[in-house]
């Protein structure tokens, strides 16, 4: 590896450590730790949401999938973007108005029930762990490829960095690392896209006609159907993508870093523009890699196509651009895992320790201490899991996290905000039905069980035909909530009146 790449990696490490040192001085209360004191502007939070959301799966994964499968790779881009309409139209503002630090806070604005809080904390932790392992495994593989260092050292480097950010700088450091990353990622993506476009004479028509003959797939590359051939599986995946974002705890938590619903709204607008432009540019990255790197070279570097973007950068701008793009990918991973550690830690420290064990009576010092300990444990636990999960498919883990979020979290969020009759039992059954059905169906899906040896984790006949169970588990989450509610008598219309007034007016004492 060249000295350029080492210098760039070290600059990112030093810059983020400087941010953490600066943020640490501003992190003395639990509120500052969990939500940066709620003082981010719409712009800052919008960039941070984009930085939190655009993971290595987006940057490396989608570019690779478009490079290998053409149009079908672009399905992910579409789903990941339109998900922001669900966030904006149904969730963002009521969430900001009702919640304080965590998703469980928001649900418990209607129910003072420990079991509901525990269930929400549990589903948050489950999603965070799946997502985190995906990111760490991806990070380890990437750094291993770039530097030729062993996988376990690569995972440890990323793991130590994320722990430092969160432990010392809390949400302030996490947010600014995400903001810096979003800017770097956009910069890198725009540069590559412009270089690709230049090779096609800045003409969309030329780009499509050249790509049509550039791959072994020929015309089929530009048409749907190269990767997704089972209709229900495609629709199920699209369902998980579009509904999952509005249930992802680390994205939802970002809305507590702004002061009111208005600012939450403007952060979604900023995020939607940035994320949208990024996903449009994934077409250029994917097409560029297909045309100028070629299928063979991409698959030779990594069978899933994850190296398409760095290889494309090398083909276009030599060692310098490849080093820059690799550094951007590194920053991308750091920003996402930091957000995940913080979210997992707040579920433990705020929900389980502060609200359930200490019944909301913990002092600032106690809760801060718990939050820092929890960050450490969440990090250590995920690093250990990631070390043992090297062979797992990253895209599968990410889509599983989206599926659990859509099935376990979204139904209870929507019912809490909009359904008057909804009650404690319904909240519990909604989360449990969604969570358990998603996990069980995945465990018996073709991702885990395959009659071919080596194609999945275990050899056997899959009991459930779809790779992504969202089309079954999301309706089950909604059904569970509905059944639990109507089969139990309890109902508190007065409390719903309060929730509804607060959600729609933003009123706080």
């Amino acid at each position, binding site marked *: 590896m060249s000295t350029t790449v080492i210098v760039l990696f070290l600059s990112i490490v030093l810059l983020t450590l400087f941010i953490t040192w600066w943020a640490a001085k501003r992190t003395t209360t639990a509120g500052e730790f969990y939500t940066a004191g709620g003082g981010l502007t719409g712009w800052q939070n919008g960039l941070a949401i984009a930085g939190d959301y655009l993971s290595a799966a987006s940057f490396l994964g989608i570019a690779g999938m478009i490079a290998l499968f053409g*149009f079908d790779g672009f399905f992910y881009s579409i789903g990941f973007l339109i998900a922001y309409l669900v966030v904006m139209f149904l969730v963002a503002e009521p969430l900001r108005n009702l919640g304080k630090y965590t998703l469980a806070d928001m649900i418990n604005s209607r129910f003072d029930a420990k079991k509901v809080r525990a269930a929400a904390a549990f589903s948050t932790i489950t999603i965070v762990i799946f997502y985190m392992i995906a990111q760490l495994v991806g990070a380890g593989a990437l750094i291993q490829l770039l530097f030729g260092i062993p996988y376990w050292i690569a995972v440890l480097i990323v793991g130590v960095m994320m722990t430092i950010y969160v432990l010392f700088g809390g949400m302030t450091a996490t947010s600014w690392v995400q903001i810096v990353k979003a800017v770097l990622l956009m910069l890198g993506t725009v540069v590559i896209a412009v270089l690709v476009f230049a090779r096609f004479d800045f003409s969309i*028509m030329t780009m499509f006609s050249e790509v049509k003959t550039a791959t072994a797939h020929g015309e089929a590359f530009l048409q749907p159907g190269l990767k997704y051939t089972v209709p229900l599986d495609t*629709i199920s995946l699209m369902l998980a993508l579009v509904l999952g974002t509005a249930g992802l705890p680390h994205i939802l938590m970002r809305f507590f870093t702004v002061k009111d619903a*208005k600012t939450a709204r403007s952060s979604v607008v900023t995020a939607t523009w940035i994320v949208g432009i990024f996903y449009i540019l994934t077409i250029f990255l994917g097409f560029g890699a297909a045309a100028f790197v070629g299928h063979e070279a991409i698959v030779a570097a990594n069978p899933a196509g994850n190296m398409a973007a760095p290889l494309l950068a090398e083909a276009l701008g030599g060692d310098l651009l490849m080093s820059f793009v690799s550094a951007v990918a590194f920053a991308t991973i750091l920003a996402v895992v930091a957000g995940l550690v913080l979210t997992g830690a707040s579920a433990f420290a705020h929900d389980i320790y502060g609200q359930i064990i200490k019944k909301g009576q913990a002092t600032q010092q106690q809760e801060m201490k718990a939050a820092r300990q929890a960050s450490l444990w969440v990090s250590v636990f995920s690093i250990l899991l990631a070390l043992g999960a090297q062979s797992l498919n990253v895209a599968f883990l990410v889509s599983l996290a989206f599926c659990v979020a859509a099935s376990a979290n979204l139904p209870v969020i929507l019912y809490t905000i909009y359904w008057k009759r909804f009650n404690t039992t319904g909240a519990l059954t909604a989360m449990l039905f969604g969570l358990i059905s998603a996990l069980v169906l995945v465990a018996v899906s073709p991702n885990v069980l395959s009659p071919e040896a080596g194609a999945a984790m275990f050899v056997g006949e899959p009991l459930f035909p779809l790779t992504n169970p969202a089309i079954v588990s999301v309706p089950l989450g909604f059904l569970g909530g509905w059944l639990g509610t109507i089969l139990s008598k309890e109902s508190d*219309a007065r409390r719903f009146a309060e929730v509804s007034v*607060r959600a729609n007016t933003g009123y706080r004492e």
Partner: protein
Amino acid sequence: MKAGSVYTEERTTSKAKQRKTPGRKAEIDFARVADSSRFRTLLEKKKKFILPLTIFFLVFYFTLPILTSYTNVLERPAIGDISWAWIYASAQFIMTWVLCTVYVRKFQKFDKDADEIVETEIKGG
């Protein structure tokens, strides 16, 4: 999701199950605010805006995988080598930005209604 129901009536029936929440000051009569015509009008307006548009963008979104999975209509060329699938996908991006902008415009108006409710129904009442 029944907007505009009468909260005050049901209050008496659910009162027995009310739990005292520690640390919560119960001075504001939220049931009365929720029942006020101003608040009910605001909810009604929001619902009229959000519900149809949400149904629209979800239908528009799922039409793409349904069409690509079950038919070949989107594989026909639209402009040069660009097929209708790409045009449809781009339309989804444009739709997202347009709806985002429309939402912000609309909700700026709702902000004023909400502030008014806080002033007159909660603080004033």
